Every structure is written in C-alpha cells, then in structure tokens.
C-alpha cells in the first residue's frame, strides 16, 4: 500500500491549517466600522475560499490515506444536522459515515482522487455552495483499476471565527469518458 508524498504533504498542510484555525477561535477582534470596507470584504472572501478549499482537500486526503483514521472525517462536519448523499446512501450520523468510509477502504486498498477546479459561491450569511467534479481511481485487492467520475455539491458553513464545516454533500455520478456527453441526432 502506497501513500504519495504529495498526498501526505497536503494532508499535513490541511491538518496544520485546521489546528491553526482552531487555535484562533475567538482570538481575532472584529473591525469596528459602520460601512463595509470593500478591500477587507474581498480579503475575507478569499480567506473563506482558501479555508473551504482546504476543507475539501482535507476530506479527500483522509479518504486517500489509510494511515489516517476515518473518524477524522467527523471533525469536518457540522455538529448537527448534516446530510451526506454518497454512493447512493443517505448519511445523517457519524456512525454511518465511519461505516461508509471503512467500507470504501476495505473495498479499495489504494485510492486516488483527481479534483477538477473548485467553484465556490456565497449563498448569503455564512453559507457557501461549492461545486466540483472529480475522478476516483482505485485499485481493488486483485489489482484491477476502478474508475468513477462524479460531481459533488457541498453546502459549507464558514464564518470568520470558526473553522468551516460541512452541512451537506450531494454526489452525482457522471460519465467519465472524454467527449461522451454529446448526443447525435439520427435522421
């Protein structure tokens, strides 16, 4: 079983970010201003996007790395309620999430995720909608490669004072072969 150095470094970076964000809770004074500062708003938005990207990379890094306990995923979720629609299953509690992650790991000893660009849109308040596509390349026990292509839509809660958390993930299978989305008209 192999772990890519790239994955490991991403995971370490992600965990360090989580730790730093956690340590900073309640520590940063709020700006006392009646009118919003456009520069500060832009910077804040970039901060949120970076944190959300880190959250997403952390999620997949945990799934990829067999040396990281699956329960780490629980820390990325909102306390309650949350909803994960993964592999056709509807997951509402942490026990079911761990069972799902364990099943995935036992089915595929080696997994690699290849993420397309991540699109983040502010939904208002502290909610963000995130959409991206990815390929999951996995090897089973027999060494056969398994490939899926999927779209994820996440709803993330991200505020200035707290680490972003996942409220919802919806997964949709996509056809994965390049150029196969087109249709033809037969006459």
């Amino acid at each position: 079983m192999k772990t890519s150095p790239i994955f490991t470094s991403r995971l370490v970076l992600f965990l360090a970010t989580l730790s730093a964000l956690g340590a900073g809770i309640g520590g940063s004074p709020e700006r006392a201003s009646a009118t919003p500062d456009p520069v500060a708003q832009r910077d804040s938005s970039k901060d949120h996007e970076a944190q959300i990207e880190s959250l997403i990379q952390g999620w997949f890094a945990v799934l990829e790395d067999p040396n990281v306990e699956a329960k780490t995923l629980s820390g990325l979720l909102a306390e309650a309620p949350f909803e994960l629609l993964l592999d056709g299953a509807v997951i509402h509690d942490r026990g079911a999430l761990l069972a799902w992650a364990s099943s995935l790991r036992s089915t595929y000893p080696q997994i690699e995720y290849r993420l397309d660009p991540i699109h983040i849109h502010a939904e208002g308040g502290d909610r963000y909608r995130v959409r991206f596509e990815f390929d999951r390349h996995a090897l089973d026990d027999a060494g056969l490669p398994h490939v899926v292509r999927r779209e994820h839509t996440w709803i993330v809660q991200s505020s200035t004072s707290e680490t972003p958390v996942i409220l919802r993930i919806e997964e949709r299978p996509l056809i994965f072969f390049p150029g196969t989305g087109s249709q033809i008209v037969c006459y």
Partner: protein
Amino acid sequence: MQTRDRVPQGMIATLLIAMCSLLVASSGQLINSEGQAGSEKPLPIHDDVGGEFSAPSSLGRDVSLSEFRDKVVLLFFGYTSCQDVCPATLAHLQALVRDLGKASDGVQVLLVTVDPENDTADHLEQYLARFDTRFVGLTGTRKEVDRIANLFMVKHDRSHGIEVSNEYNRAKTFTDHSYLYSHSQQIYLLDKAGRTRALFFTGSPLEEMQDAVIALLNE
C-alpha cells in the same frame, strides 16, 4: 489527491514530480491520465456505468445481460428508423466481429432500441439480420428501455418538426408522423462479468477496439 488547476512551479518541482512518477511506475501501480494502467495493465472497471438488465429481445424471448456472462459484450443504443449513424455503427461492429474471426464466438453485440414503440422484437430481428444474424436487439416498454438507458447514462429524446438547414436535409420530407431521435452514441464494451470496461464510437479505430475485446476475452 490531485487538483487539476495546479501547475508545477519551477524545475525542481517538475523533477520531483517526474521522480515520484518514475518511482510509482516502477512499482507497477501507476494509473495513467486515461484511467488505464498502461498497455500491460487491465482495462479499468467503470463502476458507475452499467448493471444487470432484462428485456424482450429479437430472439423472441426476454434476455438478460447475465446470459452473456461468458462473453464480451458490445452494447449500443439506437433505433431502426435511423438512416445514418445507427447503421454506420452497426456496420462498424459488423466489421469488428468479422475481423475477429473465430474469436468472435466469444463476443456478443447488443442493440438496445431507444424507439420501442416502433422497434418490435420481430422488427429488430429483421433489421439486425442485415448486419449479422448473431446480433441481438432489445426492446420492451418505454419504462424498460429507459431503465437500461439510465443504467448506462444514455440520453435520448424524440423530436418532431426538427428544423433543417442544409441541402441534404431540405430534400427530406417530414410529415406529422415522422420523428427523429437524438441519443448518446457510445459503444460500451462490457467484460465477461458484465462490467463496463471501455467506451468507443463509430469512428473508433477497429484495431483499438479489437485489442480491447481480445484483452477482455483473455481475462
């Protein structure tokens, strides 16, 4: 995990990535960007696409995919009223099967109609016999056909009164009873266990398709 919008920065990063790739490749576990594991590696299994199905067929009875578990299956969606791409695809599959020679005994071509209202089992039998009597057509109720199409993520849409703009199409006469189907055009290659292993098109090189079919026959 890889993010595809990241570009390696500088020669050191490039060298590091190249070295990592070489290390992984030398371990025999590299999966390339097409999802295939190199020429000596098996074709990937595409878990999200396909599944077991059963439907009335040109054999005069219901057939299920599992009946062909000892064969490599080439699956295509189309309809018999189609005058260009569908027959061209079937001719392509006909040539593929012909060139395989004796090995074609281990191959089954299946056509699932997207026009079950018109394509009865008898009609499919007569139509497919023009290409190869071993080809099997599948039909059924609209619900049955749609279920199979959904398994393979096939889109299809029946349209009336399509506007045409070129000379070829202007020469045609469309009546109230005429219609067209827009549908996905891929040819699915399924292994002996009924799992989707590759996709091809009418224009896919026959040699490439034959290599894939033979690889699955030898599994």
